[in-house]
């Protein structure tokens, strides 16, 4: 009996292959976008874990000092019996990260397993020297001037692991970054505080990459969830249609003795089988999407956080299983309403499918109240939320509330529009659009979400870019930036440049740990270049004078927000030096705390810090000649000289790369929404004969009806777009004023781009017209006889 009943149910799909394809494709798309994003997140987290596990940085305490650890301090600790191991970290001008370790004292770890028990390899590592790198790093990084590479898959991407001596030489420093303290130490050691004045830091104190990038991955997950929800609209629409068309079959099966429970079980089985097929397709599609987006994500993470993420994707069976699970869950969620309707359907219910549904006044009122409630929650969270989670909850409430409000507002607008409609066809067009709103509401909600996300994210990125460009102009006021290789070379370059330029301004920096987190202190000269251009958000009137005397320090916005700093608060930057904050400046794109002090005061507190970098002020027309002369005279490498335009172009390139993934996900979400429109219109076209046939019979040509159908779809799409713009702007405001501040620590001014909205409106119109073209063509190419059948019998 089960088999016969199942065959009867399944026969529907054989007769409606397009409907089946829609359902499978919708579910596959939803699964693919969600699981693709999850695969990207998993790959990135895997990279973070590899980076964190390198040299026990995720588990071992460390000793560090502002400005680094001297070899003497290391030797003193070893002599006192402490089992500590030196580590030096830095980055070459090419972007390759260098980690130097002492393999003889380093804690055991997978990255060094290639050396374990292999005397030749160990002596090579210590002797002539080679660098251990991940396979993808070896494939991407040019080896010019570097020691040979050896492959070790456990080394993080974009990083090379070498002997400490080699690393110090490559990085041009004599300071160690920190000392790792082995977990087990000999008995009877003197207390650390008696042996050294280095600061002991536990792994929890450090601002780990995983924590830093959490907000980015939360962002991606939110986008994945949005795409998944939009995809589920397609699935629900297709399932709803299939169930509606089979009302007669359900009634017959039950009349023939199939119990309601058995019917429900068979339908659930059918849905499960389809979800399984769609899930497998979704896994393949999701893997493809993740593989295509991962290089962009890697670029984004590099640009935003300096995180090195492998650009190649592995296949994890657990991920595939979870993707299959999400497909089944999605099908269950999307099919729940249809199954519930079947469960509630009386045995003698009319078998004719409902071509359209007038939303009852009560249902509309309930939906309006729910929408208002959610929008109120969004407003409360936006004003009083105060956390990243509250920010995302606010976004969710805003989007769902707006989506729920859409049909209510559309019905209200169309009711008003009916009074303005002229002529019989105009009246019919508006009245019919009103009646289609309930049937099309899911697709229109999907379109609203996609358009609002586009407007919102576009506004955020546009505001960010606009602000960033202006900020770059302020920050990069100098015409040329020079980095010398040694102190002696730096002095020679400075002396040579002095008579040939307007000013040579030192840019020295010291890495310190401040309030338990890494921070970079930059020393700048007292010069109009900074006084006139530096982008200060708030400052003491005498900020620059106080900076020059050491009686003040500037902090970047993210540090001020993170630590709740205000003007006048003091910061201990070195022993006996605790200047007050005299200004807060914007510092977009930097994930870490940064401070600015006067060159003199900083050099006095950190006299051993190398002074290699200078900003040069000169007439821009003379810069190319200066660069050539400097290269020839000092044989400086290409990376040592950067003119302003080059740095700006590089910064903008990194910036644009940062938002490539967001752009791609935006387009994908819009594509899915367009597909949702197509499936809904296809669904509707087969149920619209009772609406269209009387109009045709009354003397309206098929061509006119086709135009009316297209006009109606265009009208609904344009109204949805018009409502999506304010929702998108609200979304942008939440992103800029709430999420960004919580996630990155800086707030951006909001800029609006009406031209972009118009383009988006045109795209929405085009997508809607394309989506309606096939259903309209199908409807219009229907033979008259098929339309006449509407009047002849109970369909």
């Amino acid at each position, binding site marked *: 009996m089960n088999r016969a009943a199942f065959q009867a149910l399944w026969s529907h799909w054989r007769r409606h292959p397009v409907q089946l394809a829609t359902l499978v494709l919708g579910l596959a798309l939803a699964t693919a976008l969600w699981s693709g994003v999850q695969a990207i997140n998993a790959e990135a987290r895997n990279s973070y874990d590899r980076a964190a596990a390198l040299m026990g940085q995720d588990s071992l305490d460390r000793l560090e000092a502002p400005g680094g650890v001297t070899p003497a301090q290391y030797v003193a600790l070893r002599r006192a019996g402490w089992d500590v191991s030196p580590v030096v970290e830095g980055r070459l001008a090419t972007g390759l990260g260098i980690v130097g370790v002492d393999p003889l004292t380093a804690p055991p770890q997978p990255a060094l397993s290639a050396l374990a028990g292999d005397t030749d390899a160990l002596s090579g590592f210590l002797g002539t020297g080679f660098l251990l790198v991940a396979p993808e790093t070896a494939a991407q990084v040019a080896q010019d001037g570097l020691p040979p590479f050896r492959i070790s898959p456990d080394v993080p991407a974009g990083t090379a692991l070498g002997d400490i001596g080699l690393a110090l030489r490559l990085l041009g420093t004599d300071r160690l970054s920190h000392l790792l303290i082995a977990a087990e130490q000999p008995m009877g050691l003197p207390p650390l505080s008696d042996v050294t004045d280095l600061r002991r830091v536990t792994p929890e104190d450090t601002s780990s990459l995983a924590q830093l990038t959490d907000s980015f991955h939360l962002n991606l997950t939110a986008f994945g969830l949005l795409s998944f929800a939009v995809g589920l609209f397609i699935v629900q629409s297709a399932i709803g249609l299939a169930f509606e068309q089979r009302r007669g079959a359900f009634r017959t099966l039950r009349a023939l003795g199939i119990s309601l429970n058995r019917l429900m079980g068979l339908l659930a089985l059918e849905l499960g089988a389809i979800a399984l097929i769609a899930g497998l397709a979704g896994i393949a599609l999701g893997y493809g999407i993740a593989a295509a987006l991962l290089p962009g994500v890697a670029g984004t993470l590099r640009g935003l956080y300096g995180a090195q993420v492998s650009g190649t994707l592995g296949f994890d069976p657990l991920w595939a299983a979870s993707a299959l699970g999400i497909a089944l869950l999605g099908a269950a969620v999307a099919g729940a309403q249809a199954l519930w309707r079947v469960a509630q359907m009386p045995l003698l219910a009319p078998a004719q499918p409902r071509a359209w549904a007038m939303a009852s006044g009560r249902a509309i009122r309930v939906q309006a109240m729910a929408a208002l409630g959610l929008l109120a929650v969004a407003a409360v969270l936006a004003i009083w939320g105060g956390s990243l989670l509250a920010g995302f909850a606010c976004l969710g409430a805003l989007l769902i509330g707006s989506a729920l409000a859409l049909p209510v507002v559309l019905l209200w607008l169309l009711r008003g529009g009916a009074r303005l409609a002229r002529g019989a066809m105009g009246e019919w067009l508006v*009245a019919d659009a009103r*009646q289609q709103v309930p049937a099309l509401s899911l697709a229109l909600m999907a379109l609203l979400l996609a358009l609002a996300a586009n407007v919102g994210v576009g506004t955020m990125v546009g505001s960010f870019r606009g602000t960033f460009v202006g900020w770059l102009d302020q920050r990069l006021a100098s015409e040329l930036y020079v980095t010398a290789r040694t102190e002696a070379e730096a002095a020679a370059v400075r002396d040579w440049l002095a008579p040939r330029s307007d000013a040579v301004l030192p840019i020295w920096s010291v890495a310190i740990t401040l309030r338990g987190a890494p921070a970079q202190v930059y020393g700048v000269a007292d010069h109009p270049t900074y006084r006139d251009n530096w982008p200060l958000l708030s400052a003491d009137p005498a900020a620059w004078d106080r900076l020059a005397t050491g009686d003040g320090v500037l902090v970047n916005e993210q540090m001020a927000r993170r630590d709740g700093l205000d003007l006048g608060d003091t910061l201990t930057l070195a022993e006996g030096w605790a200047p007050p904050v005299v200004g807060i400046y914007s510092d977009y794109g930097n994930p870490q705390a940064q401070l600015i002090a006067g060159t003199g005061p900083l050099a006095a507190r950190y006299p051993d810090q190398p002074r290699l970098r200078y900003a040069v002020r000169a007439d821009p027309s003379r810069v190319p000649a200066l660069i050539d002369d400097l290269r020839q005279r000092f044989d400086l490498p290409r990376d040592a000289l950067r003119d302003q335009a080059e740095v700006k172009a590089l910064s903008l390139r990194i910036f644009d790369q940062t938002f490539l993934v967001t752009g791609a996900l935006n387009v994908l979400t819009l594509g899915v929404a367009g597909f949702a429109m197509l499936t809904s219109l296809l669904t509707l076209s087969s149920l619209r004969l009772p*609406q269209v046939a*009387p109009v045709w019979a*009354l003397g309206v040509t098929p061509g006119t009806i086709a135009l009316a159908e297209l006009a109606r779809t265009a009208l609904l799409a344009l109204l949805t777009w018009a409502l999506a713009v304010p929702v998108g702007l609200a979304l942008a405001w939440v992103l800029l004023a709430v999420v960004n501040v919580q996630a990155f620590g800086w707030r951006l001014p909001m800029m609006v781009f009406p031209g972009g909205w118009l383009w988006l409106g045109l795209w929405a119109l085009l997508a809607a017209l394309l989506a309606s073209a096939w259903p309209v063509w199908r409807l219009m190419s229907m033979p008259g*006889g098929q339309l006449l059948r509407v009047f*002849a019998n109970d369909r």
Partner: protein
Amino acid sequence: MLSARNLFKSFATSEGPLQVLRGVSVDVAAGESVALTGESGSGKSTLLHLLGCLDTPESGTITLQGAPLHDLDEAGRAAIRRRHVSVIFQQLNLIPSLTVAQNLAFQARLAGVLDPEWQDEIAARLGLDTLLDRYPEQLSGGQQQRVAIGRSLAIRPELVLADEPTGNLDETTADNVMDLLLDGVGRSRSALLMVTHSPRLAARLNRVLHLREGRLT
């Protein structure tokens, strides 16, 4: 007024072409009411569809007031349906998204011949004046057919074609609808050709034609 000569029509089926009409000729005079009866599948509805420009014959001629209808293109046929010939079906005559008032006026507005006084009179005589703001789904079957009759009479057509207009109604309601239809076509001076299975209703019209296996007998 309406003249059809030697009409042939067949439909393709999985077992080959099915000949539905085999040389039917029929004349309807102005103001005349004619009943068309016959077994299921005898071709009654097909003949009605050809006369109402809803379909085209394979061969044969149809003229209305002397003008040929059989060789019109889709736009020409649509124009005839809009202004000269009204069709009332057994069910689903109305446009679901429009109110009763809008449905009543729809065809007359399409044809550009809306006469508000005439429409008010029709609504009153059909007892629809209290239902004007309702939607079709809020009406009973009899009320829906009354709206369909009112709409078809609103253009004062030369010919009203009705395909079992009371087929879905109980006897009392069917009689009531029939009274209104005959009264209406009389007032608008339209001719009426009505398909029916009911000898009782057929007897109320001027003339009865019987169709059998695609031929008039």
